[in-house]
């Protein structure tokens, strides 16, 4: 009996994954009846399907209300709400992009351009610093959780790890950068696009502990900072923002420290890469990158073009 119950639960879990396909049999049945019988019967079948949908939705609502259902990953991720500073940061980045466009088509004088650009960049930097500092506590907590998880991970047999990984992937918890542990991370993480929400709490900053392990990052897609749709779909990754929500995401044991450091550097870099989508601005920085000789702002930590860390000598 218990086995049957388990099998039923497993079947429901499987069927639930395909719940969005449930209207298809109703529609097919309606079409068949419409052809074979009459339009009224087809409409009746559709009405029956709608009634079932009503019952299912209201039942799910009551279950959620009474606390019988667990939070899904998406719901948990959405707990982190973008702060006003994050929204303002996005607005400033959009304004920067528009400014570059207007300069490129000659609608704004050089003087106004320089003045406005400096103002927007200063505002963006202060917002980024504010965001960084506001998430220090969350970052530390995430690091602690990660360390604890890593500690547990190393004691587990390899096969079980792979089984766990497969299980997590099948449940939709594909960890960004989920590669085999022995491989170096060269693959861009497609799942990042789903979890890149400006509101997500930050994951541990491994860059502080693993400075020497940074390898060249993947060439990132050309960031379109301040893009209208970019900001709208909230996929912009500010340099200061760390990536993973700590509350609901699964343990990130698979992600190497090197990858995380590269990702952090790449994220900082994107904020500064306004020039990639616009004509090159007048060089107004005083720091030259040792790797690519690009000019950078005097207070820049990483090069805005190649992402390399700027040493003090290159100032």
């Amino acid at each position, binding site marked *: 009996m218990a086995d049957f119950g388990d099998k039923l639960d497993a079947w429901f879990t499987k069927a639930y994954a395909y719940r969005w396909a449930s209207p298809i049999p109703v529609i097919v049945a309606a079409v068949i009846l419409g052809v074979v019988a009459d339009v009224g019967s087809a409409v009746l079948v559709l009405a029956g399907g709608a009634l079932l949908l009503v019952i299912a939705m209201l039942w799910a609502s009551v279950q959620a209300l009474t606390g019988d259902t667990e939070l899904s990953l998406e719901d948990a*991720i959405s707990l982190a709400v973008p702060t006003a500073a994050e929204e303002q940061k996005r607005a400033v980045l959009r304004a920067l992009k528009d400014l570059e466009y207007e300069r*490129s088509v000659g609608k704004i004088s050089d003087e106004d351009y320089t003045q406005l650009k400096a103002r927007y960049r200063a505002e963006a930097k202060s917002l980024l610093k504010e965001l960084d500092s506001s998430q220090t506590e969350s970052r530390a907590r995430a690091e602690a959780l990660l360390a604890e998880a890593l500690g547990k991970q190393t004691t587990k047999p390899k096969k079980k790890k792979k089984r766990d990984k497969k299980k997590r992937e099948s449940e939709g918890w594909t960890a960004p950068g989920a590669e085999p542990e022995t491989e170096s991370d060269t693959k861009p993480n497609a799942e990042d696009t789903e979890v890149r929400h400006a509101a997500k709490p930050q994951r541990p900053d491994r860059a502080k502990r693993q400075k020497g392990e940074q390898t060249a990052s993947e060439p990132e897609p050309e960031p379109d900072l301040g893009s209208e749709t970019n900001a709208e779909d909230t996929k912009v990754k500010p340099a200061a923002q760390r990536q993973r929500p700590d509350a609901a995401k699964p343990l990130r044991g698979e992600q190497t420290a090197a990858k995380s450091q590269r990702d952090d550097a790449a994220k900082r870099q994107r904020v500064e890469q306004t020039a990639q989508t616009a004509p090159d601005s007048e060089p107004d920085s005083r720091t030259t990158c040792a790797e690519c000789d690009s000019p950078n702002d005097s207070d820049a930590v990483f090069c805005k073009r190649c992402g390399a860390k700027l040493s003090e000598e290159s100032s």
Partner: protein
Amino acid sequence: MWESLPEFGTGVLYAVLVTAAYTFAVCIGAGRGNPKLLKSARQAAYGTCALILLGVLILAYAFVTHDFRLSYVARYSERSMTVPYLFASLWGGQDGSLLWWSFLLSIYVTACVRWMRGKYRELQPYVIATLMVIIGFFAILMLFAANPFATNMAGARLDGEGLNPLLRNFYMIIHPPSLYTGFVGCSIPFAFCIAALVTGRLGSEWIIAVRKWMLFAWLFLTIGNALGMLWAYEELGWGGYWAWDPVENAACLPWFTASAYVHSTMIQERRNMLKTWNIFLICLTFFLTIFGTFLTRSGLIASVHSFAQSNIGIFFVWFMGFIVAVCAALMIWRYPMIKSKARIEAAASREAMFVFNNWALLGMMTFIAVATLFPKISEWIWQETATVGPPFFNRWLAAPGIFVFALMGLAPLFGWRKTSTAAMKKAFIAPMVALAAAAVAHLALGKAIGFPAIVPNDRFYPGFLGTVLQQVGALAPLLVVSLSAFNVAVIVQEFARGVKARQRNKQEGVLSALYNLVERNRRRYGGYTVHLGIVLIFLGFTGRAWGVDTEASMTPGQGQAVGDYNIVYNGTRMEVDTEKRMVFADVTVQRKGKDIGVLHPAKFIYAKGGTPTTEVAMLHTFRDDVYVIVGSVSPQTKRATFQFHINPLVSWIWAGVLFMMLGAGISLFPELSFSEVTAWSYVRVGAGAASGILFAMLLGMAPTDAFAGTAPRASERTSNLSPSALARRDAEARQRVGPWWYGAPLVGLVLGGVLVAGGRRRRRG
């Protein structure tokens, strides 16, 4: 027969009200931060929408099974109607159209709730709560004022009354849903606005969220109004496309404020200004959709479009009062947060232009609203009803319309904050040269080509005001043509500058630069495409100034000169089908001595009685529409009375609408990074594009018969025309097909792109 259908249907409406209230309550709880309550609210919102779907399906079932126990089914359908018209009858009358409104709103709510998952965590509960209030209002309306499931007092009839013959055409199937889609779509931005006010999250978050929703609603307001114009042009048989009917005016009011908003929002995004304006415009747009519905249904103002007089008006008055009270209270409460800290620094700035634009569009909207309500206002104030007709609107709105048209070209030339003299010189040279050249050319050559620059008209008022209006009306053609050249030059200059900048910086070819320019700045260049459409529309409207209208009584063989055309009356013929007799008066249209087409205006006399309907016949060309209406026909002498209208540039209006749709589609097009999409996404893209193109081709093909003006469009059964007559009719119809056919692939591509919703977005970093 389903015995308990009426009770079940009414029960569903009660269930809608209950679940909407339940969802509202759960949302208020979720607003305090409980994620499980939010999840519950979302599921309940889906359930409420599914209930509305159930209600619509039950009513549809009643129609297709001819359940004449329902009063609504008996009034708007009959046994001889085919299935498409039976479904169209769902929105043919007041009761069903309210349910249809609720259904469209439920589609929007479902899409919005789905789209919001994982986003706008703090706004979500209040967005859903607001939408549930609107659904609840319509449920109350249906339950207590206009129940589509109400039964006949006298029991089931043997047959129904059927749909009004004027409504039995293709446009009945697409115009109301299109317009309702636009109206209802304004609810989503309104819900976000209320949520932002309640939560105090008044930054750019909610503005970005609602941008595409408002643009989508605006697109369908445009399409709906355009289809209404097309319908009036085709069906009403008075030679025009806009009669300033109260219901027509009510439909265009939210379009003005929505147009103002889609511009004004850019200021808030860019400079964090005009927050109060934007909130006001969104609230006003939604209010006007409810107000327009109220005007249409309350019978307050007489209109050809009005539904029957009913007691529904008081419900709308209370709801409108509730909207005003809530919006005003929230705005006053949050005023310290929405008050702009920045100031407009110069009149020669884009911000200033947009503020002028806001005022101009708001002013036009207010003028139209007051003039529409003027009969009631005069009755209340002076105890006499004073009506205002089309000439009043045309005279008064010419000047502000030309002002807005000029602003459309000026605004892109100015920079943000202020524009230096050098930048202004550089920006204005080419457009001013184009304006001057167009003005000179029009003055010199206009009369020779039949489009004179200055068209004298009658004085409408005495005194100085009358003189001013008269002069503006006379100069309107010259001003519009000159400003059209100015606007086109501005658009071309914007594209050219952008392409040159990309070529300079990215070393791209012209076509690559153009593609990438538009692809990376869709809103901007989509907007310019919309502006191009508006140029064509303004030119189309101005064509009326050069129109020729003639009435004639002719016997077979006689000809009548009308403008550049000669129209020869060939004779009459009669055809009969099961529904009606059709009396055709065939005419041949000639230009410069050559036959260019044969038209078949007709009168349809229905077997069931009632007023005979006039079937217009038209010949569409790039330059003119030859529009023929037959009045009376003498069976003995065959003498017929005709109205002939030469309507220049009318086709440009429809072409302009297509450009507006294209531009809006470019702005709405989702971001896709093809290098990152999976194979399944390619399939979705392909399927979406293919289905969109197919749908648009069908949409384009369908009005063919409507444009023909010959065949019995209203007939539900095969006529007894001979095969050769049918073939001739269809061939002539295809020759006269309008711009919809050529625009169909364009519409399809846009639709196909928009259908790729949920595609992978470009990863920006």
